[in-house]
């Protein structure tokens, strides 16, 4: 094959002109004549029955055009077919502080806010369940009557023979790990503009990662056929999973628009973003792992409890991912998993970057580091001794087609100076290693069907411009650019010739959305198929002109030429004219459906975890720990990520670095703080995502294992690196000061408490010497 001319090149993102000039439009930048502003009344109680709502005073304000309550949103919905348990506005009960109780549409924001103050709600306050371990013991006053003991779902999996595996282990550890709750904190607060069109149709512009699911949900709740609803995704200011299920304002705005017969825009405040939440849950991991004297992991068992908040959301998927990906990164024959998704009276959790894997990976990689020390083995070497040999199928039925983890480990060991530094840095300075992995899209759709997961259409007309129609959602990760690069590479044209129409349900075919890192693999394959199809049509016409076979042709730099004799060539524009003369209109489609053999085992819950392909990451963190204050300073992180093939190295590196950055926030400083069900830090001032001052040097290394089924060999890049960062930092802290912190985030208080405890124990043993290596 000729060398690639556009794939693998650092093409600037195609939508960057709009981003660097301010002319690109995000949902809240849109406005239309006659537009009303919507505001939502949130529950002040964690758990309360709504006896009545009196809106008469609010409706008396002249600028107020509509008030909606649960009576207007009676149809329940949820992202999973098994979890339709929420209503856009609460019907009977409010289930968390911040739950949506009523909404107002008014001519001005000021009038809408005044109207909220005048809504009279009569609540009957109920006992609230705020601690997941207490909540799952509840025998009455359940959050949802149909969910006994407040348990949303539980799963119990056993593969191989864990008891035998533990018996074979030379070293066994059993510990509890705790991860606090974190929020995506995408910079763009959610916003939805719903336009009730004069012909009885509804157009909805919304900050969503999943236009298709939003389209379905609005149709259900508004009881309108999907064919009369159009969902358009404008530019989206970051998602990270926080916009990957239907968020209440996305239903409330259309309901208000229909009620008022006017366009309605709702934009969340930052506080409302935190209350809508859907972030990573509080997770309690009871982990047991055994290794042999040689460092082979002989068994792993985990009991995981996730504090899911008040609604189902993606919950069962989150808890299943935690189990499916627990051991599947390594070659482990014996695995037991018990996962519980528990309801509490707090905002619902959901999918967040690294969905389901992050907190169990923290526990697993921390414990593996400790076991390596028990066995007096190098932690990097222990990982090398437990590698899979691709292609293979893991014990829990996950098909691994490409596996760049060995190279990731070698690359970070080399770049970080691991051999010279591990255990050898001055006291207070340490280095730690950890690995992670992630899916390249889910092999099974949320709503089970055999329909393609994505379809891409391409049209070429007489202007010789190529237009791609894709349902895939650009959310900052480079989806649009990825399509353009693939089409331009296949057609051998300048990327500037390619136009893209994306994520508009009236114009573009269905794509399941930007979640589970599925876009490059799935929409990329669909785009590749469509581009090859349309190229074949052009080649057929050109072959006729040259009197050759189309297999003898190639395309590059805006020319189509005969491979054996490149002087026989035709410029792309003329080839298009020939092809249109020959075929009529030039259109093509490509779609992608994961292969049957990638869809996983048949056990209950076995549908979550399987992916057509997996990414891998290895990381080394270097930290300083101030023993006086407990303050951890992360000095440097080196991350190697196996993305299969970097279609665009700048965007891949951006994804890897961004993942590390987000993991770092969770590792040392981010946590949602709860007090009696109330979020105490619902702002970016108090929920502290790292600024430039707290972000160390992050170096990324691209590893290309060339997946046999990925487009040009590509697979996931946007999530898989997050999970390794946290245990890499935790393991580095151990190397620095000899304490293991099993609780996230690793705050100075926690480090200091651990250091004091260690000193106490050493004194008790009459051993005054420090250092824990």
């Amino acid at each position: 094959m000729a060398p690639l001319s556009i794939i693998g090149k650092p093409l600037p993102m195609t939508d960057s002109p709009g981003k660097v000039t301010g002319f690109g439009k995000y949902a809240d930048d849109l406005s239309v004549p006659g537009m009303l502003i919507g505001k939502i009344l949130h529950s002040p109680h964690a758990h309360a029955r709504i006896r009545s709502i009196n809106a008469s005073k609010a409706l008396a304000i002249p600028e107020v055009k509509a008030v909606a309550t649960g009576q207007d949103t009676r149809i329940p919905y949820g992202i999973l077919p098994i979890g339709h348990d929420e209503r856009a506005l609460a019907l009977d009960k409010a289930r968390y502080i911040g739950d949506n109780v009523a909404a107002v549409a008014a001519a001005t924001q000021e009038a809408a806010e005044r109207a909220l103050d005048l809504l009279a709600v009569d609540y009957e306050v109920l006992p609230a369940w705020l601690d997941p371990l207490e909540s799952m013991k509840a025998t009455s006053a359940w959050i949802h009557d149909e969910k006994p003991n407040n348990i949303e779902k539980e799963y119990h999996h056993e593969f191989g023979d864990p008891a035998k595996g533990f018996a074979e282990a030379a070293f066994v550890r059993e510990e509890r790990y705790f991860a606090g709750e974190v929020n995506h904190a995408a910079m763009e607060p959610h916003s939805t503009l719903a336009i009730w069109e004069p012909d009885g149709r509804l157009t909805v512009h919304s900050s969503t990662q999943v236009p298709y699911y939003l389209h379905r949900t609005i149709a259900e709740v508004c009881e309108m056929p999907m064919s009369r609803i159009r969902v358009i995704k404008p530019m989206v200011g970051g998602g990270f999973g926080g916009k990957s299920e239907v968020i209440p304002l996305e239903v409330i705005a259309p309901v208000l628009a229909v009620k008022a017969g006017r366009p309605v825009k709702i934009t969340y405040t930052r506080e409302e973003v935190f209350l809508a939440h859907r972030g990573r849950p509080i997770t309690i991991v009871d982990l047991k792992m055994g290794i042999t004297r040689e460092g082979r992991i002989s068994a792993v068992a985990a009991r995981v409890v996730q504090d899911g908040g008040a609604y189902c959301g993606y919950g069962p998927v989150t808890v299943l991912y935690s189990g499916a990906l627990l051991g599947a990164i390594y070659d482990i024959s014996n695995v037991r998993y018990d996962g519980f998704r528990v309801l509490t009276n707090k905002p619902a959790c959901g999918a967040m970057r690294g969905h389901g894997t992050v907190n169990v990976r923290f526990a697993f990689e921390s414990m593996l580091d400790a076991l390596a020390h028990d066995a007096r083995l190098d932690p990097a070497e222990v990982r090398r001794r437990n590698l899979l040999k691709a292609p293979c199928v893991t014990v829990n039925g996950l098909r691994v087609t490409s596996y760049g983890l060995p190279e990731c480990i070698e690359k970070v060991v080399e770049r970080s100076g691991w051999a010279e530094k591990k255990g050898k840095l001055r006291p207070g300075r340490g280095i730690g290693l950890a690995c992670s992995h992630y899916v390249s899209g889910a092999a099974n759709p949320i709503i089970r069907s055999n329909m393609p997961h994505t379809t891409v259409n391409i049209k070429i007309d007489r202007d010789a411009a190529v237009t791609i129609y894709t349902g895939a959602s650009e959310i900052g990760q480079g989806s649009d650019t990825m399509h353009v690069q693939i089409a331009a590479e296949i057609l051998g044209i300048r990327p500037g010739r390619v136009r893209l129409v994306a994520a508009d349900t009236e114009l573009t075919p269905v794509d399941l959305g930007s979640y589970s890192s599925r876009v490059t693999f799935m929409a990329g394959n669909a785009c590749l198929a469509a581009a090859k199809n349309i190229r074949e049509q052009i080649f057929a016409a050109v072959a006729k002109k040259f009197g050759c076979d189309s297999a003898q042709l190639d395309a590059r730099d805006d020319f189509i030429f005969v491979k054996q004799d490149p002087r026989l060539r035709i410029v792309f524009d003329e080839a298009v004219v020939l092809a249109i003369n020959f075929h009529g209109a030039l259109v093509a489609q490509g779609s992608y459906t994961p292969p049957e053999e990638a869809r996983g085992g048949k056990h209950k819950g076995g549908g979550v975890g399987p992916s057509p392909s997996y990414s891998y990451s290895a990381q080394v963190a270097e930290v300083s720990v101030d023993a006086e204050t407990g303050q951890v300073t992360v000095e440097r992180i080196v991350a190697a990520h196996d993305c299969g093939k970097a279609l665009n190295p700048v965007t891949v590196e951006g994804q890897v670095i961004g993942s590390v950055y987000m993991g770092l926030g969770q590792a040392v400083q981010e946590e949602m703080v709860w007090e009696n069900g109330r979020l105490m830090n619902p702002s970016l001032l108090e929920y502290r995502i790292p600024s430039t001052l707290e972000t160390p040097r992050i170096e990324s290394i691209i590893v290309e294992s060339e997946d046999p089924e990925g487009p040009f060999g590509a697979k996931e890049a946007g999530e898989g690196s997050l999970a390794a960062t946290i245990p890499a930092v935790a393991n580095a802290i151990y190397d620095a000061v000899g304490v293991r912190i099993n609780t996230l985030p690793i705050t100075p208080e926690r480090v200091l408490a651990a250091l004091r405890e260690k000193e106490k124990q050493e004194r008790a043993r009459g051993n005054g010497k420090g250092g824990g290596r």
Partner: protein
Amino acid sequence: MTKELIQLKVNGETREVAVPPCKLLLDVLREDLGLTGSKRGCDDSSCGACAVLADGVPILACVAIASCYQDVEITTVEGIAPPGELTPLQESYAAAGGSQCGFCSPGFLISIKALLDRNPNPSDEEIRDALSSNLCRCTGYMQIYESVKLAMTRGGTRAAATPAPVGR
């Protein structure tokens, strides 16, 4: 609320708007002048997405009362390059991956412009410090630093002599 007529000098043009006396500069820019480049990312002046220049100094438009800024030159992200052109900074920002979702980019570009206008050759530490009041959730800042350094080699915030489209 009774509105008052105010004049603002924004991106080199004098604009007259009738607004309530307490209306924030960010809201006047976005709602009354159609300049939606400046963003609102938080409730408490912590994210920097709304940054604009007031006589060359970055301020947060989300906590500035519009009527107090009638005698200064306001520059928003829409005004950092002449119409139809991009500065080397903007091109570099696109080329080096400074924007992912792009929501924070207007604020960052304003802060970087202010930095490079007063110090064309800042050190790594000066860049980091100058950007410490802008939050980005996508990039981990590394590619933003790359963008600034690339821009420094290409002529910084001066308008490009010829329009050089990005995304080609």
